[in-house]
C-alpha cells in the first residue's frame, strides 16, 4: 500500500517538478531548450522578467496547494482506517481564499502594466521600417531611403522533402535578411498584403499581426550585434512555416555602408536591364529564381498540385504567347495565391524565370525573353 502511495505521489508531482525545471534551466542548450530567451532589447528583458515572476509565483502556489493535497492523499486514506469527517463549509476560510489570490493578482498587475507600457513606447524612432507580410515571404522597406526588398526562405525543396541532407540553418535562412543598426531605435510598421501574418522576433519580443489594410507598430533597440531569427506566427496558408524572419544587427558604420551599397545596387541594376542576355545566363538565373519564388506552389518540376496549384508543364499560359506569360507574373491572379510579382522581382528575374519555365521539363518553346521585354510590357500594357 505505501509503495503504491509513493508511486502515486511521484507520478502526480511530476508536472510540478518539471515546472521547476523549466524555471531554473539555462536556455543555451540547443536541442533541449526549456525556457524563453531573455533577448537583447529592453522590451524582451521586461517580458522575460515578468515571465519568470509568474513562473515562481505559480510554482510556490502549486507546491503549497498540491503539497497539501498529497499530504491528504497520504494521510486520509480509507486504507489507513480513518473515518470521514462531515464538515462542508467554513466561511472564514472561503473568504480568505478568495481575497488572498485577488491581492496576489493586484500585486502582479503592477510589473505586468509597466512591462506593457514599454511594449507600446513607439515614439521618437531613429529609423522606420515597413514590414509587409506576403504569402509566404516578407518585404522590408526602409522608409524615405528608397530601399525595399523581399526576404524569402532559402532552404531548398530538396532539403524539405528529404531528397538532400538538411543544412544547419534549415528553415531559418532567407535570401536577404533585414539589416538594422545597433543602438538605434528602430520602429517597425507592420502590415499584410493578402492574409493576416504575424511578424515575430523572439529576441526583441516583437510580435505584431500583419493585417491587410491595417498598420501596427512595434519597436526595438539593442546594443548587441548579431543575427536574430524569428517566424511568422499567424496561420497564413500552406507555407506558414516557411517564411522565417531573419534580422541582422550591425554596427552603425557597417549599417550605413550596407544601406549605401543597397542604393548603389539599384543604380547598377538599371544598366543590366538593357543588356542582351544569353540562353545560358537566363536559364541559370531563372532556375535560381524559380526555386525561391515559384517552386513552393508549382513544385520543383513544374508539376503543380492538382486542384490547388496549376501545373506549368504544358500549361496554356506557359506554352502560349510570351505577353500572356509576362502579364500573369506582372499582374497576378486576383483572389488566388498567384501574386503580382511586379514589385517583388526585378525585370531581369522575371525575364529569366519566364524563359526558364518555357524551356524546361519538356516545355520547349525555344523563344527568348529579355528583361527589356518585361520592362516594355510594364510600361505599355
Amino acid at each position, binding site marked *: 500500500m505505501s509503495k503504491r502511495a509513493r508511486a502515486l505521489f511521484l507520478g502526480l508531482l511530476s508536472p510540478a517538478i518539471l515546472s521547476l525545471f523549466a524555471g531554473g534551466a539555462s536556455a543555451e542548450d540547443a536541442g533541449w531548450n526549456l525556457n*524563453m530567451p531573455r533577448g537583447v532589447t529592453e522590451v524582451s528583458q521586461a517580458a522575460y522578467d515578468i515571465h519568470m515572476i509568474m513562473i515562481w509565483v505559480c510554482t510556490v502556489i502549486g507546491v503549497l496547494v498540491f503539497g497539501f493535497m498529497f499530504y491528504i492523499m497520504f494521510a486520509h486514506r480509507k486504507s489507513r482506517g480513518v473515518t470521514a469527517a462531515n464538515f462542508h463549509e467554513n466561511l472564514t476560510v472561503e473568504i480568505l481564499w*478568495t481575497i488572498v489570490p485577488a491581492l496576489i493578482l493586484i500585486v502582479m498587475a503592477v510589473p505586468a502594466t509597466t512591462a506593457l507600457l514599454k511594449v507600446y513606447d513607439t515614439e521618437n524612432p531613429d529609423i522606420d521600417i515597413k514590414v509587409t507580410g506576403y504569402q509566404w515571404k516578407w518585404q522590408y522597406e526602409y522608409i524615405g531611403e528608397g530601399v525595399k526588398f523581399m526576404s524569402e526562405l532559402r532552404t531548398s525543396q530538396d532539403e524539405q522533402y528529404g531528397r538532400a541532407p538538411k543544412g544547419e540553418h534549415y528553415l531559418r535562412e532567407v535570401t536577404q535578411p533585414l539589416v538594422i543598426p545597433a543602438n538605434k531605435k528602430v520602429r517597425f510598421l507592420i502590415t499584410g498584403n493578402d492574409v493576416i501574418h*504575424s511578424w515575430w522576433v523572439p529576441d526583441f519580443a516583437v510580435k505584431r499581426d500583419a493585417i491587410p489594410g491595417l498598420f501596427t507598430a512595434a519597436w526595438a533597440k539593442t546594443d548587441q550585434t548579431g543575427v536574430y531569427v524569428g517566424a511568422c506566427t499567424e496561420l497564413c496558408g500552406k507555407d506558414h*512555416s516557411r517564411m522565417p524572419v531573419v534580422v541582422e544587427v550591425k554596427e552603425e558604420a557597417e549599417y550605413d555602408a550596407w544601406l549605401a551599397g543597397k542604393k548603389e545596387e539599384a543604380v547598377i541594376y538599371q544598366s543590366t536591364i538593357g543588356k542582351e542576355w544569353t540562353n545560358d545566363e537566363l536559364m541559370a538565373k531563372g532556375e535560381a529564381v524559380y526555386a525561391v519564388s515559384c517552386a513552393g506552389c508549382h513544385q520543383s518540376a513544374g508539376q503543380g498540385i492538382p486542384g490547388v496549384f496549376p501545373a506549368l508543364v504544358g500549361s496554356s499560359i506557359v506554352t502560349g504567347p510570351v505577353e500572356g506569360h509576362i502579364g500573369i507574373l506582372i499582374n497576378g491572379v486576383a483572389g488566388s495565391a498567384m501574386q503580382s510579382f511586379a514589385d517583388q522581382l526585378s525585370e531581369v528575374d522575371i525575364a529569366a524565370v519566364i524563359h526558364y519555365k518555357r524551356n524546361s521539363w519538356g516545355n520547349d518553346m525555344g523563344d527568348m525573353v529579355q528583361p527589356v521585354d518585361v520592362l516594355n510590357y510594364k510600361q505599355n500594357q
Partner: protein
Amino acid sequence: MAHGPSENFFSRWLFSTNHKDIGTLYLWFSFAMFLLGGAFAMVIRAELFQPGMQLIKPEFFNQMTTMHGLVMVFGAIMPAFVGLANWMIPMMIGAPDMALPRMNNLSFWILPFAFAILVSTLFMEGGGPNFGWTFYAPLSTTYAPDTVNYFIFGVHIMGASSIMGSINIIATVMNMRAPGMTYMKMPLFVWTWVITAFLLVAVMPVLAGAVTMMLMDINFGTSFFDAAGGGDPVLFQHVFWFFGHPEVYIIILPAFGVVSQIIPTFSRKPLFGYSSMVYATASIAFLSFIVWAHHMFTVGMPIAGELYFMYATMLIAVPTGVKVFNWVTTMYKGALTFETPMLFSIAFVILFTFGGFTGMMLSIAAADTQYHDTYFVVAHFHYVMVAGAVFSGTAAVYYWLPKWCGRMYDETMGKLQFWIAFIAFNITFMPQHFLGLAGMPRRYSDYGLQFADWNMVSSIGAFMYGGAQLLFLYNVIRTIGWGKPIDDPQVWEGAEGLEWTLPTPAPFHTFSTPPIVK
C-alpha cells in the same frame, strides 16, 4: 407508460425519445468523433515526428490541424457532455425524462449530418477547411478553398444542435425538478450544466452570426471583414472570440460538475463549499463574456484596451482558485479510496490547475507577446481541454457506467488506462511548453532543427496517449458485454444523490412518479 425500449433496432435508436437512449447515442457518437479527431492528431504528430515533410503535404497538414480542432471541440467534447447531461440530469433531479423528448431526438440526429458534411470536404477538390479552427478572415473568406461553404453549413447545423440541446436542459431543470429539489439542492453537475446551457444559448448564435457574415462576404459581395469595402478583418476576430471564449468555458464547466460529483463520493464526505462552487461557476461564466480580446493581444489594440483585457483575464484566477481549493478541502479529512474515476478526477485537479497557471501567464499581455500563437499556447489549452475536459469525461464514464449497464468495469484495466493516459499525456504536452518558449509557432507543418528533440518526445507521447484510448474503448465494451453483474443501487460506498436510489442497472423509465426530496 411503463413499457420498455422498442424491439426493433432502427426504431429504438432512430426514433428514440428516451433520455437514456439519446444519452447513449451522444456518448457513442462523441467517442467515434474523439477517435476520428485523434486520428487527425496522430497524422499531425507523425508528420512532426521529424523535421522535414515526410508523410503529407503542407496544405493537407493545415486541413488536419483545422479538422482536429473542429472535430474535437464540436464533435467529441461538447456532445460527450450533452450525452452525460441527457443520462444524468433527469436521474439527478428526479425527472422522468427530458422536457422536450422529440427535440432531443432531433438535436442528436442532425449532428452526424453536420460532421458527415464537414469530413466529406476532405475528399473534395481543393480539400477541406485549412484555415484553423479559429478560421480568421481573410484566410477563410477571400483565400479559402471553395469547400468553405460546406464548412459554414456544417457549423450552422452543429450550432442548431447545441442550441436545441441547451434549451432542452434549461427547460428540464427549470420545470421538472422533483418536489423539494430546490435550486440550491441540485447536484453540482446539474448546476454547471444549466449555466453552460445559458452560455450556449447566448454564444452559439454569435458563432452562427460570424459564419453568416463570412458566407455573405464570400458569396454576396458584402464586406464585413474585407478592408477594401470598408470592413475590417479584425472585426472577425472580435466576433469569433466573443463566441470563442465562452465556448472554452462551455467545455470546461460540465467537467467541473463531474469532478464535483466524483471527489465527494470517493472522499466519503460532502462537497466542501457547495454554494461558493455555484457562485464561482456563475462568475466564471460571467467573466467569460468580458475577456475575449485576450486572444488578440498582438493585433495592435490601443494600450487601454490591452490593459483592460489583461486585468479582467487575471480576475478569472479568483473563482477558479476557489473551485480548486474547494476540491482539495473536500478531500481533507475524508476517507479516500482511489478507484479509476477518482484517479482521473485527481489528475484533473492537478493538470487543470497546471493549465490554469499557464493561463495566468498568458494573461500578462507583455509576456503574451512572446507566448502568443506558439506551442506554449497549444500546451496550455491541451492541459485544460484534454486533462480537463477529456479526463473528467473519462472519469464520468467509469463512475456512471456500472449504474447504466449494471456491470462493473475491471478496476485493474481502468487503472492501467489511467496510468498510461496520465503519463502519455504529460510526455505529449509538457515538452510543448518548452517548444513554445524556445520559439516554435503553432500550426507549423515543418520546423527548424533546434526543435527536433522535443517534437520527437511529444510525438511518442501522443502515440501512447492514442493507444490508451483504444484501451478505454476495450474496457467499456468488455464491461458492457462481460463485466461482473452488480445490483447494488448505491454502486459506490460514498455515493449520494437521487441517481443512486434507482435500481442498478437503471431501468428504461425512471422516476415516473417523482421522488420527494427532503
